[in-house]
């Protein structure tokens, strides 16, 4: 098992390497390069000379493989993800300020999603086709069906008109004021979480229906167990693999895809950083964000894979 984990961790390296090559190349090949954008910042009009000079200064005049060599060299030997082309800040420090926001938002959203999805999913499997099932599912699906930007906008607009309340726009880091921070995070996290919860809830319901018909559930009943205990102790676990996988699959959405909510709720997270960086063609930042998101996704998927073994002992033996 350790060997497996070790192998997986080692496998991260080539994966990250290949992926970084791809992203490194792709972001630079997208039409509209950073120099064009920098030139357009000028009011006086620029010429070819300016352009060449900029290319050289930014080190973009070298062939791509050389640029990559320099970049990966810095990363390998100095643990440095290079610097933003615009701000000149180190990419690591930029990500370091953004990551906690995203991480917190994602974690909260995930917690909310799970704490809604699993009980509702289980409930509606148990009450299959009863009114409760219909209502629970409908509610959950409505949350899925309403785009998060829409809910987000409603939450910002209407309360501000009716009650003079609007979400806080000044981001307060968790370290400085946890209460304020949570107050700020909870709404976007809830919106994100609830919309994620629908799929998880449906997966839970489906798997529950599969499991509840198994013979060992009958055995548990024959022991005189309460239904609720049967569910929590015997049923949930056996239907959990796809649900857990779903959590892994939703990670990229949480880390990279919360842009919209970050935008509406003025949260300085990775999504916004990425969006800005992409818009500004800030190659090192894009690559850096990608690398960090990638690492996170891969680690979470590793955890998910390991959890298969915890959930299903048959899988453990490989």
């Amino acid at each position, binding site marked *: 098992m350790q060997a497996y984990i070790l192998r997986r961790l080692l496998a991260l390296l080539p994966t990250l390497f290949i992926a970084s090559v791809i992203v490194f190349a792709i972001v630079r090949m997208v*039409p*509209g*390069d950073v120099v064009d954008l920098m030139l357009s910042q*000028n009011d006086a*009009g620029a010429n070819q000379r300016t352009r060449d000079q900029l290319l050289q200064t930014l080190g973009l005049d070298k062939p791509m493989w050389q640029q990559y060599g320099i970049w990966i060299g810095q990363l390998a030997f100095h643990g440095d993800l290079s610097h933003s082309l615009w*701000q000149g800040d180190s990419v690591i420090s930029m990500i370091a300020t953004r990551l906690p926001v995203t991480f917190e938002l994602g974690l909260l959203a995930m917690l909310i999603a799970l704490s809604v999805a699993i009980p509702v999913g289980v409930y509606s499997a148990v009450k299959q086709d009863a009114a409760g099932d219909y209502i629970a599912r409908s509610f959950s699906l409505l949350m899925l069906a309403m785009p998060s930007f829409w809910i987000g*906008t409603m939450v910002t607009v209407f309360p501000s008109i009716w009650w003079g309340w609007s979400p806080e726009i000044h981001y307060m880091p968790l370290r400085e004021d946890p209460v304020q921070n949570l107050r700020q995070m909870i709404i976007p996290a809830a919106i994100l979480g609830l919309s994620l919860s629908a799929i998880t809830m449906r997966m839970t319901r489906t798997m529950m229906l599969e499991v509840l018909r198994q013979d060992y559930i009958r055995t548990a009943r024959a022991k005189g167990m309460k239904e609720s205990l049967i569910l929590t102790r015997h049923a949930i676990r056996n239907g959990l693999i796809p649900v857990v996988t779903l959590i892994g699959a939703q990670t990229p959405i949480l880390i990279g895809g919360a842009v919209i909510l970050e935008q509406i709720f003025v949260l300085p997270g990775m999504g916004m950083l990425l969006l*800005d960086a992409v818009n500004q063609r800030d190659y090192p930042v894009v690559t850096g964000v990608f690398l960090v998101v990638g690492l996170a996704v891969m680690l979470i998927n590793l955890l998910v894979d390991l959890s298969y073994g915890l959930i299903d002992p048959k899988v453990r033996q490989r």
Partner: protein
Amino acid sequence: AAAGTAQAQAHAETPKYGGSLDVATTSTGVATLSWDLADWQATLQTRDTGQFYEQLFSVDLSKAKSRGGKYPFTISGWQPTDAVRGELAESWNWVTPLVLEVKLRQGVKFPAKQGVMAEREFVADDVVYSFNRLNNSPKKTQGYYDHLDKVEAKDRHTLVFTFKQFLADWDYRFGNGFFSGIMPREVTEAGGGNWKNANGTGPFMLTNVAQGNSLTFTRNPIYWDQEVIGGKPYKLPFVDKLTHRVIKDEATQQAALRTGKLDILSSISWEAARELKKSTPQLQWNRWLSMAAARVALRVDTKPFTDVRVRRALNMAVNKQEIIDKFYGGEGEMFVFPMNPAYVGYHTPLKDMPASVQELFKYDPAKARKLLAEAGYPKGFAFKMQICTCTTEQMELMPLVAAYLEMVGVRMEIVPMEYGAHLSAMTSHVNGAGYLTTVSDVNPTTSLRINFGKGQVYNAPMWNDARFDARVADALAERDEPRRQQILRELTAQIVEQAPAIWMPAPYRYTAWWPWVKNYGGELFVGAGRSAPIHARVWIDQDLKKTLGF
């Protein structure tokens, strides 16, 4: 600088110090770029660094409309010559036609900054240093300072600019433009790119940067400037704290304004303004014409737009008045580009333009069809029009334009492009036959040059006319302003008539602020993109704020 006495009544209240000011600025789209001026990143850079890096020239805010003057100060790149006021410069005069002597203000000080510099006086060497640093930056726009030979310090407070040739823009290029900030040597040595080192003579000091969220400034206690209110001078700035909010989402901006989380919101669409007036009647308002005038550039080097008749026909085919009336709810102006009405003296109103120009703004589908037929397109044609997905309003409007064109048989296929790709297509001159651009024209002397000069980055229509370029150059070299205005007015009429684009109307936008924001009339800019002197003069009526329940 003396305050207008006529407005004594308006300023009768005695200002109070303290409080904080929260603003969401005009371009909230992108967070601050570099903090180092030598990185040459124009607009957004000045917006934020302008709070502490001052320049030689600024404007006389007492000439603001709200203070009884005639200028709204809502355009970012240019200020009328008669409104210019020395900022770090006290006075200036031409010693010879090519030598300018500038006397610097005395007693201006850089505040102390821990680990960067001690408090010290601002001197001529600082200007020389800053200029040379900008001039020698590898990221410099080539040719930007070519009109200058050298900049020297004659003594501690006197500067001598030696010109190679006269340039009408000289005060804008290094004085109150985008690349004119004075950054002390100590800061660059400590690392000018790091916001923690930033320190200038301006009214505010940068104290915190929350990437992608906000910039926080505190007042510079030893700021030199004063404001006379009710005949009494007051040290500036009034507020203790100034916060710039980076809020991309408009709904969020407006909600924040509505709930008093923002004191000033600079840029609001007319529609949102109407709603805000209803839901929050206490707000104060100012209306200004958007600089981002849209036009569908038509590549004059590509068929069928090589034919001026086709280009004129497309202009006539679009019902611009209806767009103003219906799409912009009546809150728009027909003729705004390439000379914005705010360029007093340079702008000719449409009614004074030749008939051939006026014709372009009248809806006349019959004539359009006729012109097209004459040009050999009786059945019309199809073309692709590239549009940036970032301009939401235009994304809405363009289908409407397409519908108008359809009626004269021209099919405009809208090709949305992502921001970077779209912009880059223009700057590297590979844009399509039709190309929607909303790039604003920063000042009257540059507008014609950068939008229609051969090879210029904003020249989406690929206008290429040597005589035109020469006339523009003439205007730039012209020392006499009325004569310069004359040339530029003529050139404007010429280029508009040639219709290298479908000229679109521009909508008005609004600035709103709460009544407790005092000594403010909706001004947005002094010089290029800066707002520091405006914000320095604002004081907060904290009692009023409390009475209003905030």
